[in-house]
């Protein structure tokens, strides 16, 4: 089926044409046949009338006697007797000159020229009265009114009846056609309804009508997004639980130690110092935990299916400068040489999210660059792109790890990562989400000038056009 609309339009028009034309044809044929009978009877009446001119008629009591074989069927004999036209002729003085067999002896209508209603022989009659202007003779002819009406109705009914009978047939066929037309919708609904709650595979239907294609596509896209979101949430919960377990275990051990000390009621100076040290470590542990939870929340907020976009135009250089000034203390603390170069570059984006992106990349660069090392940040306009580039003189990332570092909770070196470098393993995952949100491309390479890692984030310029 190509299209439900075309199918229903064409088949219903075809059905109406077939039903109405065929019923018209049937009505035409029946009416023609009835008209033929009427014309035949008219001829018969002419013959009878002419017969009255035959002098022999007078001898037969003013009535024409016809041979039986002229009127063939019994129905025609019946009709002929009913359709009979009766005649009377009077002279100018109102004396009956001649009459047909069935007419009364008295004048059947008033002596006034024109059409009249008359009543005789227990029936209503339609009479026509005319006076001969030459000698004043009156000629009267009459026909039963009920027979005239019934004959006219018979002819009309033959034309109308097929259409009346065709309507219920057409109704039944329309019901069936609409059923066939809507069948693809019922199939789609049945396929979706029959799904298990956990079955998020795309719906596969063959020969889907044009009207249902967008619905099938969007249903499949929705199912795909749901499947991805479920998968992501599942992994996220598992990763978060795993990452939170370690610091919580450490905190529990430290709390246990303090409780133990309090229980022993040790009052020695050194034990006080030890407890204070433990409390300080607990405080640091809680800080790390709070930071980790904050990062998890940022990550969740910047997920493509969570984020509510609130984009505005901004200068990426100004934003980078702002972030650098707020984080400069950490760079100074590690005695690193930092340079910020570039030009004004307008992009459209979410200020908070982009600030988080620059901040994460800057902190990462500072964290992984040795004390006294070099870091450079540049903002440039290149063709149709705005490019933000971080370079450092650190050890960099092996090429084989480039794709994996964006994974949540992934740490370079796995469980054997450098313990001196703190972090949650969520920074680059957040950076990637924010880049995707801004349709930006993010690339890792080896820095040609500084020898360490080079991170390039390219924002498309149509991003700017969109924000206008």
């Amino acid at each position, binding site marked *: *089926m*190509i299209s439900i609309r075309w*199918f229903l339009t*064409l*088949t219903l*028009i*075809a*059905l109406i*044409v*077939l039903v109405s*034309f*065929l019923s*018209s*044809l049937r009505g*035409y*044929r029946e009416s023609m046949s009835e008209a033929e009978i009427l014309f035949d009877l008219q001829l018969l009446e002419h013959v009878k009338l002419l017969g009255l001119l035959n002098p022999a008629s007078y001898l037969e009591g003013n009535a024409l006697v016809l041979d039986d074989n002229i009127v063939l069927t019994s129905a025609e004999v019946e009709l002929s007797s009913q359709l009979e036209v009766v005649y009377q002729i009077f002279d100018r003085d109102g004396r009956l000159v001649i009459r047909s067999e069935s007419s009364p002896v008295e004048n059947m209508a008033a002596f006034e020229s024109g059409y009249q209603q008359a009543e005789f022989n227990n029936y209503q009659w339609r009479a026509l009265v005319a006076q001969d202007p030459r000698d004043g003779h009156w000629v009267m002819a009459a026909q039963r009114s009920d027979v005239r009406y019934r004959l006219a109705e018979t002819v009309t009914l033959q034309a109308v009846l097929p259409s009346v009978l065709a309507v219920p047939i057409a109704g039944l066929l329309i019901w069936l056609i609409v059923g*066939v037309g809507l069948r693809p919708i019922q199939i789609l609904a049945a396929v979706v309804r029959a799904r298990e709650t956990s079955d998020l595979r795309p719906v596969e239907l*063959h*020969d889907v009508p044009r009207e249902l294609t967008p619905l099938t596509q969007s249903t499949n896209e929705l199912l795909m997004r749901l499947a991805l979101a479920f998968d992501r949430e599942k992994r996220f919960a598992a990763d978060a639980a795993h990452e939170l377990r370690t610091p919580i275990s450490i905190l529990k051990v430290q709390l246990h130690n303090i409780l133990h000390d309090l229980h022993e009621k040790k009052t020695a100076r050194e034990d006080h110092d030890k407890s204070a040290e433990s409390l300080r470590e607990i405080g640091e542990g809680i800080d790390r935990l709070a930071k980790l939870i904050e990062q998890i929340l940022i990550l969740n907020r910047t997920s493509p299916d969570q984020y509510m976009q609130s984009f505005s135009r901004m200068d990426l250089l100004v934003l980078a400068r702002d972030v650098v000034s707020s984080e400069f203390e950490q760079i100074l603390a590690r005695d690193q040489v930092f340079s910020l170069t570039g030009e004004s570059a307008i992009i459209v984006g979410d200020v908070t999210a982009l600030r988080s992106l620059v901040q994460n990349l800057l902190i990462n660069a500072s964290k992984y660059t040795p004390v006294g090392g070099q870091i450079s940040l540049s903002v440039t306009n290149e063709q149709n792109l705005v490019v933000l580039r971080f370079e450092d003189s650190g050890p960099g990332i092996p090429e084989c790890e480039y794709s994996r570092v964006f994974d949540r909770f992934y740490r370079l070196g796995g469980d054997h990562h450098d313990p001196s470098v703190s972090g949650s393993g969520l920074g680059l995952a957040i950076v990637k989400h924010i880049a995707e949100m801004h349709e930006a491309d993010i690339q890792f390479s080896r820095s040609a000038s500084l020898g360490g890692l080079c991170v390039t984030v390219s924002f498309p310029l149509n991003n700017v056009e969109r924000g206008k």
Partner: protein
Amino acid sequence: MIDAVVLVLREVMEAMLVCCVLLASSHALGARHFWLLAVTACALAGALLYAVNLAEVTTLFDGRGQELVNVLLLVVSSVSLFYYMSRIPVMLLTTSIAVPAAVYIAIILAAAGALIRELAEIFVYVFSYGIAAGRTVPVLSGAAIGAGVGVSTGVFLYYGLLWLGKKRCLQVSVVVMGLISAGLLSQATRFLVQAGLVPGEHVVWDSSWLVAESTLIGELLHALIGYDATPSMEQMSVYLMSLFFVFILLRRVISTQSTYNNAIQQKA
């Protein structure tokens, strides 16, 4: 009016049969329907040209012009149908969705060849028995009713074929197109016999007492399988040879479908 209805209905039904089977089968193969516009334009122009110049055409080739033009149209139509049918198994095997231009041309030629003859007959009838005879309204009304009934039946035939599903639609289409093509070639042979170019003296049988060609069933059989009440030996030979070719094609289509069962679905 009834005469106009019967004549136009007969011609339109013949044309619709060819067009609907082509439409449904080409849809099953993934073809687009734009060719219908080209066919309508060609058929209307060709039929008008043929009808207007009928007198001149008849006098050509020692008075055998009309028969020879009819033979040309019938042969073009049936050969195009045979070519189209022979391409169906090939198209089922290819993974490409696009239908080759040659197939579109074959479809257009097959449909236009069939339509030109039928439409020309309708034009001639409407002009000579209707407009020229002063019976414009009844003849045009009858022609409209006949055309309406014929086209409506065609719509149901088309959707009926699609309703069968792609596999059955193609099989039924090949059988119907095969019978139509064999009938067209048989008709062409008959025109050649009438033109005196083929002997055709020996009539194989005379079944006009059973089904006369002028009756409704005779007309339907003529449109569907090329029924002829008094076929000549030459006509029968051409008809049977065509049917043999159709039989081979049908077997190829069915075997291709069973071997590559999923091919049609992938193309869809």
